[in-house]
C-alpha cells in the first residue's frame, strides 16, 4: 500500500521506540564480558551447570541488553568492539570504502556503529569519523545507480549495501519511478 509509512529508524545515536528497523538493529549480538556476578541466571549460559553467571564469562548479548545494563559508574558488563569498527577494518574503509560488502559485514553497519559510541571506547572519535567518511565515499555510487536503473533487476546493485544504504537506494528509485510516471502522463 502506498499509504503505509512505518515508523522510520532514527538518525544518529538515538533509537525510535516504535521503529521495527531499530528494534531489529538492536537485536544484533555483541561479544560481552560479565564484570559482576548475575545470581540465578546461570541457565542462560548453555555450556554451564552453574546457578549464577560468573564474573569473566563471555556471552553474546543483544545490543538492547548491553545498553540496558551498561552503567558508566559501575561495571556490570563490558562490550567488545566488533571487528568491523576496529583499526584494521577502519584502514580498509579509508583506502576504498566502495570495495566492502556491508551487507555481509553488517547489515546494520552505520546504525550499529553509531550505537557503539554509547560505550565510551577510546576509539570513539575514529569510529565516528570512519562511519561518516565511509558513508560519504559510497554515497555517490548509490545515488547514481539508483537514478539510472529503471524498470530492471537491481539485486546486483544492492547486494553489498547495508540497511541504511538500501533505504537510500529505495528512495532514489522511488524518485526515479515517480518522475518517469509523470513524464509518461500517468501521474494524473
Amino acid at each position, binding site marked *: *500500500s*502506498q*499509504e*503505509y509509512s512505518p515508523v522510520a529508524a532514527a538518525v544518529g545515536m538515538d533509537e525510535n521506540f516504535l521503529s521495527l528497523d531499530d528494534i*531489529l538493529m538492536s537485536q544484533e549480538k555483541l561479544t560481552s564480558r560479565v564484570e559482576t556476578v548475575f545470581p540465578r541466571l546461570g541457565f542462560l549460559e548453555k555450556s554451564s551447570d552453574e546457578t549464577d553467571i560468573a564474573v569473566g564469562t563471555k556471552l553474546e548479548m*543483544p545490543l538492547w541488553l548491553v545498553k*540496558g545494563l551498561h552503567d558508566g559508574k559501575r561495571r556490570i558488563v563490558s562490550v567488545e568492539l566488533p571487528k568491523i569498527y576496529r583499526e584494521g577494518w577502519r584502514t580498509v574503509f579509508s583506502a576504498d570504502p566502495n570495495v566492502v560488502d556491508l551487507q555481509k559485514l553488517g547489515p546494520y553497519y552505520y546504525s550499529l556503529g553509531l550505537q557503539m559510541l554509547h560505550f565510551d571506547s577510546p576509539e570513539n572519535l575514529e569510529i565516528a569519523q570512519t562511519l561518516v567518511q565511509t558513508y560519504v565515499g559510497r554515497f555517490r555510487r548509490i545515488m547514481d545507480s539508483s537514478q539510472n536503473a529503471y524498470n530492471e533487476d537491481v539485486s546486483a546493485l544492492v547486494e553489498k549495501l547495508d540497511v541504511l544504504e538500501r533505504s537510500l537506494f529505495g528512495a532514489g528509485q522511488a524518485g526515479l519511478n515517480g518522475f518517469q510516471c509523470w513524464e509518461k*502522463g500517468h*501521474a494524473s
Partner: protein
Amino acid sequence: MFCEKAIELIRELKRAADGQLPAFNEDGIRQVFEEMKALYEQNQMDVNVAKSDGRSDLIPTIKFRHCCLLRNQRCIAAYLYDRLLRIRALRWEYGSVLPTAIRFHMCAEELEWFNQYKKSLATYMRSLGGGGGLDITQDMKPPK
C-alpha cells in the same frame, strides 16, 4: 535467552510485503505476556529478598530481568502500532469496507480501532469544503 518470541513478532511483520497485513498473532502475544509475568514475579521476589536480607548482589539480576521486561513491552507496542499503520492505510486503499480476507487477519480490537478511525476521518472530511464536505480519499492524483 529471553524476548525471543517478542522479536519473532517483529520479524514476522518485516517479512510481510510492504503494507500487507499478516494474521494477528494472538498466540505469540500471549506467550510474551506469560514471559513478562514470570520475569516480573521473579523480580518481585528478588527485590523483597534484596531489601529484607541486604542482598545487593541481586541487583544486577533484577536489572537484567527489567531490561527484558522493557524489551518485551517495546516489541509488543511496536508490533501492534505497526499493524495499526497498515490497517489505517487500508482505509485509503480499499475504502470503508474492507475485503473479508483482510478482516479475518484482524483481531476484534483492531476492527474496532478501524471503525473509530473511519468515523474520525468522516467527521474531518465533513468539516471540509465550507461545511459541505469533501471526500479526500478520492482523486488522489492531481488533475493533469
